């Protein structure tokens, strides 16, 4: 009996950090089946100051594929089951306009987290996040003006465009949870530091929509969850 108590206490001591701080990881790959639409060349001839920054013209980034039918830029996040996190990180995320391109094409951030928009081009851009749930705004940013600082209060996938340069499109993925990531060039993603529990993971691709999967993890295991989207040729 004495031994059992000690064993249980030891077990608690070992497991509780895992419960409090989370040591499990969900990782996987996002890929597609079928034929995706061709990435089209972007014609920047109307803005020579940007066109000359690209020795080969860039292509559309709505669907970015990689080796082995992988999909990049897919937002993977915990949509249910994550422990409640109230405060947004104090660090801002930066969204850059350079060469008449949004870098990154999709940016993920927390609700209430500061978004800094920077214009590194010679030309004026106007940032128009077309929010439906959050407040919609539309601001010009002439070259040489200070970065714009904005926040979004509610979870939403917000398409962003520049009116002046119609090919510039991007997304703000504003999320409640801090457990999110974007799939890399090879389609892989990793959600580390998760406490044990039951979760719903969502993968969101701007053209193909969202998919969810439920997963239960315990302890400090690494669970693999893969997503496969059906590509559309048009």
């Amino acid at each position, binding site marked *: 009996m004495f031994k059992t108590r000690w064993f249980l206490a030891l077990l608690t001591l070992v497991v509780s950090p895992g419960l409090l701080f989370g040591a499990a990881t969900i990782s996987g790959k996002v890929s597609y089946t079928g034929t995706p639409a061709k990435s089209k060349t972007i014609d920047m001839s109307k803005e020579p100051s940007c066109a000359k920054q690209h020795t080969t013209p860039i292509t559309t980034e709505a669907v970015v594929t990689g080796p082995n039918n992988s999909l990049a830029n897919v937002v993977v996040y915990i949509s249910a089951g994550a422990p409640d996190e109230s405060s947004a990180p104090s660090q801002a995320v930066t969204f850059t306009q350079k060469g008449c391109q949004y870098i990154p094409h999709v940016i993920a951030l927390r609700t209430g987290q500061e978004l800094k928009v920077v214009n590194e081009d010679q*030309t*004026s851009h*106007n940032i128009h996040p077309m929010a439906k749930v959050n407040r919609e705004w539309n*601001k*010009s*940013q*002439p070259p*040489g*003006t200070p970065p714009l600082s904005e926040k979004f209060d509610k979870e939403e996938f917000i398409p962003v*465009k520049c009116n002046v340069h119609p090919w510039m499109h991007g997304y703000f993925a504003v999320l409640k949870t801090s457990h999110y990531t974007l799939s890399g060039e090879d389609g892989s993603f990793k959600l580390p530091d998760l406490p044990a529990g039951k979760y719903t993971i969502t993968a969101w691709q701007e053209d193909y929509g969202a998919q969810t999967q439920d997963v239960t993890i315990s302890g400090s295991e690494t669970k693999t969850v893969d997503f496969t989207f059906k590509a559309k040729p048009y």
Partner: protein
Amino acid sequence: MSVASVQHAQHHAPPQSFIRKYIFSVDHKVIGKQYYALALVAVLIGMVLSWLMRIHLVWPNAPIPGLQLLSKSGAPGGIMTPEYYLSLLTMHGTLMVFFVLTNAPFAAFGNYFLPIQIGAEDMAFPRFNMMSFWTTFVAFCILVAAFFVPDGPPLAGWTSYAPLSAVGPDAGPGEGLGQTLWGLSIFVFCIASLLGSLNFIATTLDLRTKGMTLARMPLCTWAWFITSCISLLAFAVLLPACLLLILDRVAGTSFFIPGGLVISDRLQPHSGGSPLLWQHLFWFFGHPEVYIAILPSIGIVSHILVNSMRRPLLSYRVVIYCMMAIGFLSYMVWGHHMFVSGMNPFSSLMFSFPTLVITIPATIMTLIWLGSLYGSRLRITSASLFALGFISMFVSGGVSGFFLAQPSIDIYLHATYFVVGHFHMVMGVASLFGVLAGTYFWYPKMTGRMMNEPLGRIHFWFTFVGAYCIFMPFHYLGLAGNVRRYSAFVDDYLLPLIPVHRFITIAALVTGVAQLIFLYNLIHSRFLGAPAPPNPWECTSLEWTMPSPPPFDNFGGKHPVVYHDPYQYGVKSSTGDFLMQDSPEEAQA
């Protein structure tokens, strides 16, 4: 009009309280001064806006200190955004055309002097008159409020073309509440103008004193009368047009918005409307409006010139017929703003013809002014300098119109700085010269003090030379194809033209600062100017028969009797080389 039965304005007792005397006054003289003060505030704001625009055009990356206080999103760090430039441009045009050029030469001086010049105690409807001013004031406040709404002032230009102005905030920054306020402000302004015009017409037709036949009215009175007739029809069309625009914006109607529009990635929930309908309605008002802006100044300048030349015009009647012809023709030319708008190209030819014909009365008047100068005894004063400057400006501005009246040339010059140069010269500068001439001329009568004459001349020189330095180069830029309403010059062919723009900006800033001389003169003379005699310019019209400033009931309860036309100059009489209109004396030579 029968001289036996002379009708009178409603008698009103002298006002006692401060509010009744200076604020809610029914006295046409106070109302005239109120309109003048409003126009002065509007022109100062409009001028500052033009400085901001010109500075931004030639130094686009330079922060303008303090601008971010007026609008944090419009000028982050003091650097103007493209939309804010267009907003300032819109407010500049709206303030200048409506609140300065319609107010000052017409409502201000007309209100003050029309009743006096026809020998009446006041306007036909003094309370309507008070309402007209305060309604104009409300319209002004609504417009200025647009500066302070979150989405900023409207940016669709003073012409406010649909669908940009009609679809609402989807069209981008500057098309939110500010544009609706614009529509509302102009709607209210139209009401005020209609009331004012009714008053002018009724007064002129019914309240002329004994002996004051229509043929004996001074030319400026004729100009105010003809202008009020034009104004009645023109503003009556703009009023419902603004209402329809507001409805499209807030009530989901589609008067000016066709179907299938995608703005900000959204399919717009409208269909069946026509953008050209807005253009037709607007310009049906808009073209007569520019004659509303210039005709009173033509009248004022003619009146002052005759007085300065000490001889009548070669033909008084011809000038009146010309003013009437311009008024009549002004309703037939509106499509010349729409040659390349997509309307039937045959219509363009049809509009071109009366547009060219309208040159004829304008040319006749100019030749008559010039011909009357011949052999005259011209006196040079600040007032007559501005009147002569008016002739120069009217010619310059009018001549460029000749190009634009031809549709095939307009293919190249439409929407370039050539057009901007044309209307600034002929409407902005020339009309304002009429106002300034009128100010220097009538200030002694209105305030009982003389303005400082040397300062007036200095003001004239800066303004005359400055205005040419600013607006003549606009025509050259237009010939090079420099497009208007651009917030920055980034196109390949525009970059080499920027030095010309720099010259213009500097000229504009210098000329603008020189207006401080005028402001100083206005204020300083009011309190410290030499006391004015009743008739310092030896002028014949009835306002010069009364003390300076006139008593509240003008003729002291008496009704003057008129014996002459107002252009008895170059005659021998007991007063000198002129005869007052109310003098029973006959000319001796």
